């Protein structure tokens, strides 16, 4: 190297500066430090634009367009939902890989691994909560992305195939989220997936349905084989499918460009790729800074939500012998559960969802209207809104509030102290359950305000059911709290009522509650009471 002559010519300081700039330019894949400074100052690029170099030099940037139409970079045009979906897939991959370190997909280990992750791994709970929150947000955001595309008519020619890959990505996202559901191997997981796979059984003809069900479960019932299959689907097969379709989808998005706001082009035209020079917004630096800030902000939001307001649920270990009361699917399948309540399993579980899927894919071909403007697409938009409302109603019907009320006595106790999860009694906790026997006929009042509230709810709930249900008369309840062991209380609910024939009937349910037990809801402010342990007696 001819260091000596260069030094003599430029002097020492200048040589060092040039070498530093050279290194900088390599790191930024072609943009020297001076140009970065000009970017940050908001100065226009020179000609030819020196800021395009990274798009040809850097692998990760070569798939990004070099410039966008100014109108599509406005936040309210796309809400960055596609970017967000991609980013969430990235978040799920990272957190998922971390979770895999502490997880073995066998019935003997899966559940204890969850407990170990929560109680022995630093930031283990955060990782699990982030992964779960990310999964639910991903379903939400992918759906919102599709709704946005539908409302702006962006599926129209030439983007029919982009829409098709998008529908596939939505389905894969749903399956990814659902296949992850089984992995903790708790009651929630086990029964949701048992119900889910039993829908596959309804595929006609019978032999096909049974084979599909058997393939998914690996045995007539979900067990070690089923868990392994769902695990492999979740960590390998479905991510690969998603990966493939993501790149096809993204290639199409870049290829056709993001469709412009419909007012800015003639009906039937597509000028997304013909951006006038004065409307160009270059990826470097404007769009990149915008996207980076957006994702960083979103990450901060996720961290805050996970830290304070979201806890992934973990119920009792899976027990194939006992179905918990009010088993529900994940919320994004409530609509399917609602359908199953009003129609036959084959129709509601297989044919209707199948028709729905085909319809979604066929939308660009059914809708021959060339205009993407809202006022020209009244039929499409109204039918889309109606479909959305129907989905919401069906989802409501999928919750336990619709058509699965059990006997009043069972429901009263379930409301106050559910078989799984928290409920108001576990929420006030061991310390607020004074020992004694409380009969609702005597309107008992204790020194503990929170416990009084429970007793009041117990009374009110019995009274409400008495009014509603003619077979539930002159009902009263007795709640007894006894000390079973050191730090363990026995909570016995007794409900007595007269049947219409005047025969006395009785329901008894016993629960135990330990002093150290923490129960939590999935959504809501987290309990940080452990930070300051109660003063020693």
């Amino acid at each position, binding site marked *: 190297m001819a260091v000596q002559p260069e030094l003599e010519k430029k002097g020492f300081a200048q040589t060092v500066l040039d070498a530093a700039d050279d290194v900088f330019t390599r790191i930024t894949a072609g943009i020297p430090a001076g140009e970065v400074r000009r970017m940050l100052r908001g100065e226009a690029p020179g000609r030819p634009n020196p800021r395009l170099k990274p798009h040809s030099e850097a692998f990760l940037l070569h798939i990004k367009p070099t410039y966008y139409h100014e109108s599509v970079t406005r936040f309210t045009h796309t809400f960055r939902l596609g970017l967000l979906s991609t980013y969430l897939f990235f978040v799920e991959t990272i957190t998922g890989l971390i979770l895999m370190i502490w997880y073995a997909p066998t019935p003997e280990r899966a559940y204890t691994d969850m407990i170990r992750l929560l109680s022995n791994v630093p930031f283990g709970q955060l990782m699990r909560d982030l992964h779960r929150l990310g999964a639910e947000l991903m379903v939400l955001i992918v759906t919102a992305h599709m709704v946005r595309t539908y409302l702006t008519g962006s599926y129209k020619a030439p983007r029919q195939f982009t829409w098709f890959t998008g529908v596939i990505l939505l389905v894969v996202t749903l399956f990814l989220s659902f296949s992850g559901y089984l992995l903790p191997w708790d009651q929630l997981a086990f029964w949701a997936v048992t119900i889910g796979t039993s829908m596959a059984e309804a595929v006609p003809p019978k032999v096909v349905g049974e084979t599909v069900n058997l393939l998914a479960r690996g045995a007539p019932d979900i067990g070690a084989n089923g868990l392994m299959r769902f695990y492999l689907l979740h960590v390998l097969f479905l991510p690969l499918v998603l990966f493939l379709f993501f790149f096809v989808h993204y290639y199409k998005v870049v290829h056709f460009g993001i469709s412009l706001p419909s007012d800015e082009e003639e009906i039937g035209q597509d000028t997304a790729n013909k951006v006038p020079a004065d409307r160009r917004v270059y990826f470097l630096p404007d769009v990149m800074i915008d996207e980076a800030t957006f994702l960083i902000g979103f990450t901060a939001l996720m961290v805050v939500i996970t830290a304070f307001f979201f806890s992934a649920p973990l119920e009792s270990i899976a027990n194939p012998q006992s179905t918990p009361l009010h088993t529900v699917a994940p919320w994004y399948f409530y609509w399917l559960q609602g359908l199953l309540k009003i129609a036959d399993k084959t129709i509601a579980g297989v044919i209707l969802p199948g028709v729905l899927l085909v319809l979604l894919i066929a939308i660009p071909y059914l809708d021959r209207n060339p205009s993407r403007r809202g006022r020209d697409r009244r039929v499409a938009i109204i039918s889309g809104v109606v479909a959305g409302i129907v989905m919401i109603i069906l989802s409501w019907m999928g919750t336990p509030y619709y058509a699965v009320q059990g006997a009043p006595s069972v429901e009263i106790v379930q409301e106050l102290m559910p078989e799984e999860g928290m409920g108001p009694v576990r929420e006030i906790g061991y310390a607020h359950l004074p020992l004694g026997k409380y009969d609702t006929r005597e309107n008992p009042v204790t020194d503990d305000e929170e416990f009084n509230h429970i007793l009041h709810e117990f009374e009110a709930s019995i009274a409400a059911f008495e009014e509603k249900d003619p077979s539930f008369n002159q009902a009263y309840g007795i709640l007894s709290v006894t000390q079973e062991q*050191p730090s363990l209380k026995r909570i016995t609910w007794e409900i007595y009522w007269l049947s219409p024939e005047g025969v006395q009937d009785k329901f008894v349910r016993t629960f135990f509650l330990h002093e150290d*037990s923490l129960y939590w809801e999935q959504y809501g402010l987290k309990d940080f009471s452990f930070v300051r342990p109660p003063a020693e007696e």
Partner: protein
Amino acid sequence: MKRPWYSFLYIRSPLVKIGLGIVAVMISIAVLLFLGVIEDRRMAAQTANWDGRAIEKGAEIYANNCYTCHGPDGKGLPGVAPALHSKYFFTQRLKDVGWTGSLHDYVASTVAAGRPSKVKSQWAQMMPTWSQRFGGPLRDDQVNNVTAFVLNWEKDALTQGTPDNPDPWQPFADAPSKAVAEGGGAPVAETPVEPTGPRSPQELFAGANGMGCSGCHNLDLPQTADSRGPVGPNMANLYETAGSMVPGQDAETYVYNSIVAPNDYIHEGYMAGIMPQNFAERMTEEEIRSLVAWLLDPNRQR
């Protein structure tokens, strides 16, 4: 172009965006630092939580399966099953049986594999095998839960040994089958103890050489809808009810049959197989007759 009301969402300045990004990063770091500081306490709380939940689950299993023999409070039932809620059990038992592992292992393996020996012990029932590994109903995690529940008596049990709060442990009757011959050979054949004349009904019902009836049957409480014995019926009003229990059997026959063949008639709410079925061999005919007469005596002497 007209700027819509939501145009505040369009941030153009790169420096503002970068500033916002830096604020977001700071917020994330602050939250993560906060979580890092409380992480040890969170893990401790979670550990205690899952231990507590194991005890809750164990309590349910105990209440459904174990209490009929080991008693609702774990203090055992004389003649039926030994106490677990006992100071002796927590402090001395392992040394006496020569168990080298932990008490947790001892309880868990006894729950799992049972105590198949029924040879000449004072316990009427044998401990069944509870683990699915040995043909029982419980999964491994359930065996661990019920073990956690039993061990949770420790704090209470260690306060025992005062006159108000005696240790409920009943020393095991010496079972000859457990004896080992000189030099570690096979057990010596058992030699039945010759009976030394008829025993009194009181002795049979509650005495040291008796049948252990008092473990399950309460003589002082009546058997009514409000007051029923948890394991076996109460007997204060037996003389009134015995004659009308089974059609065609007078009071004497009913009580006699209930002793020699308890499974022939099981009253609603009780389980067959709890009361031992070998009383006809363990008592003489004369003793059984005197026991029946004593039980049906309205002025029975204790």
